[in-house]
């Protein structure tokens, strides 16, 4: 039996009911990893011996007892190499553990490996990794998306049962769309950023990348909650998994016209419009929305993210850890340079301050929309997975690919991407955005959509 093919929920059940052992599950995942890694390159580090060892001694009372989980390589885990897929941190062994991983370990999970990503999470392709691109399991000539591309590829290819990623703008949702996984991006502050190598500190959000909506909900309930070590952590108890809805009667769902840009692939448009029909059959009312042009979100995101990057990467001096600044790759240099420019004397007001004001306008626009509708849907990405090499020489690749997730990111809103179709054999993602701290509604709409469709059951042929 290939236990690696199980969902998280089924794997937990199997271990608790002693149908199989954690060691068998871990071994099946490791076998699959060994088989697929030469093709996919989804991992930077695999904790083979450690994972097997830990699987032999598990506490059945814990919610994730003996569950192997893949963690994006920007989460620090004490004693384990943590590179953020950047050569500057090639030899860095973390001296402490991130809150998210600590919570998973406390819940009984086993870290099976660290997944590949765009270096420093700077990108939407996993092609800018200093350890080579991850390939899309549906077609290895294509990109998996990013920056959490390793986690999404490892999950859909059944190298693991489940995984954790992180999102600044799109890095959970977009690779989920391109790989056919479920990606849940929580409200900003719902999940602690402590111990996650920082990119854009006013937006960074850890979150699950999974095979089903229920798997994502379970992981969010475990990793969420207030953390005094993160000053932007919302003082709230861990998120509770909501009781499911029977249907969507009485629910108003908005479909922004601007979320169908000209560059959109026709198959994506068709899939999302079909998804609207499914939601209507479930009782929802779909309303077209006029929202602020996403080009402003692209601009705000570009300024804020580059500015925060230039500040966050200032700590990499080669003195306390890592290699000297000369080890930064081209993409990191581009971002640090632009961020230094937008924060520099004479440009601060026009760029950084103006961007923070336009961010307020974007938040106000969402507030206005949420007076009319309960949730907003749209395509997660305007395209399906692009071919390898698509990012070369494109300084704005990520921002343009992520144009449909940037507005909600800037407003700190939660969102979930779920599979809603295929185009040329590549998955398409539907995103559901809800008001701040309303992950319950996003999860419930996603659950109903998932249980009435079978896109999530399809797997790549590898």
């Amino acid at each position, binding site marked *: 039996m290939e236990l690696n093919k199980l969902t998280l929920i089924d794997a937990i059940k199997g271990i608790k009911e002693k149908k199989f052992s954690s060691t068998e599950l871990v071994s099946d995942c490791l076998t699959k990893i060994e088989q697929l890694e030469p093709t996919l390159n989804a991992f930077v580090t695999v904790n083979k011996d450690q994972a097997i060892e830990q699987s032999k001694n598990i506490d059945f009372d814990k919610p994730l007892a003996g569950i192997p989980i893949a963690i994006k390589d920007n989460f620090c885990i004490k004693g384990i190499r943590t590179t953020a897929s950047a050569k500057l941190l090639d030899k860095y062994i973390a001296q402490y553990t991130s809150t998210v991983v600590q919570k998973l370990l406390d819940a009984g999970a086993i870290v099976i490996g660290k997944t590949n990503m765009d270096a420093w999470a700077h990108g939407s392709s996993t092609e800018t990794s200093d350890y080579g691109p991850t390939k899309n399991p549906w077609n290895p000539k294509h990109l998996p998306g990013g920056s959490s591309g390793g986690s999404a590829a490892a999950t859909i290819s059944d190298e693991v049962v489940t995984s954790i990623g992180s999102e600044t703008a799109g890095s959970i949702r977009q690779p989920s769309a391109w790989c056919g996984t479920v990606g849940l991006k929580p409200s900003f502050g719902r999940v602690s950023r402590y111990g996650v190598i920082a990119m854009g500190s006013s937006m960074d959000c850890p979150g699950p990348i999974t095979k089903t909506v229920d798997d994502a909900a379970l992981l969010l309930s475990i990793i969420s909650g207030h953390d005094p070590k993160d000053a932007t952590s919302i003082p709230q108890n861990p998120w509770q998994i909501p009781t499911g809805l029977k249907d969507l009667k009485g629910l108003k769902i908005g479909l922004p016209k601007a979320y169908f840009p000209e560059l959109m692939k026709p198959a994506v448009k068709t899939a999302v419009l079909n998804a609207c029909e499914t939601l209507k059959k479930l009782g929802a009312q779909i309303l077209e929305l006029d929202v602020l042009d996403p080009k402003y979100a692209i601009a705000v995101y570009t300024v804020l993210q580059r500015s925060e990057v230039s500040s966050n990467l200032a700590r990499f001096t080669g003195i306390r850890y890592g290699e000297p600044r000369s080890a930064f790759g081209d993409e990191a240099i581009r971002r640090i340079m632009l961020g230094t420019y937008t924060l520099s004397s004479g440009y601060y007001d026009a760029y950084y301050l*103006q961007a923070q004001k336009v961010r307020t306008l974007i938040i106000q626009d969402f507030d206005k929309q949420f007076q009319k509708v309960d949730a907003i849907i749209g395509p997660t990405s305007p395209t399906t997975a692009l071919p390898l090499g698509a990012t070369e020489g494109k300084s704005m690749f990520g921002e343009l690919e992520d144009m449909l997730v940037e507005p909600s990111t800037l407003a700190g809103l939660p969102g979930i991407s779920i599979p809603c179709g295929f185009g040329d054999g590549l998955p398409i993602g539907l995103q559901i955005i809800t008001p701040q701290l309303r992950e319950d509604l996003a999860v419930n709409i996603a659950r109903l959509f998932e249980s009435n469709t079978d896109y999530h059951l399809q797997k790549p042929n590898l």
Partner: protein
Amino acid sequence: MSTSKISLDQLRHIAKLARLEINPDKENYLAEQLSETASYIDVLGELDTKNIEPTYQTNHLKNVTRDDIIEESLSQKDALSQAKDTYNGYFKTQATIKK
């Protein structure tokens, strides 16, 4: 705001601020790429933001502090474990002030 173009002089100044050494062969290419990015952000000037307050982060939490209680933190050994160069239990850096 006019369309921004980043000159080589500006590029060198920014690199100095960011403590980055840019390979002279790459200067022109990098200046072009930064100018391209700048052209996308210039749209910010199109919107009227008079009387609009900036949002620095979305939770509106302010001045988050903790009680002044000593807690266990990284040991000196752990803190120094990743440094290339240490001396008597300290990080070793280049001198910033000339003798």
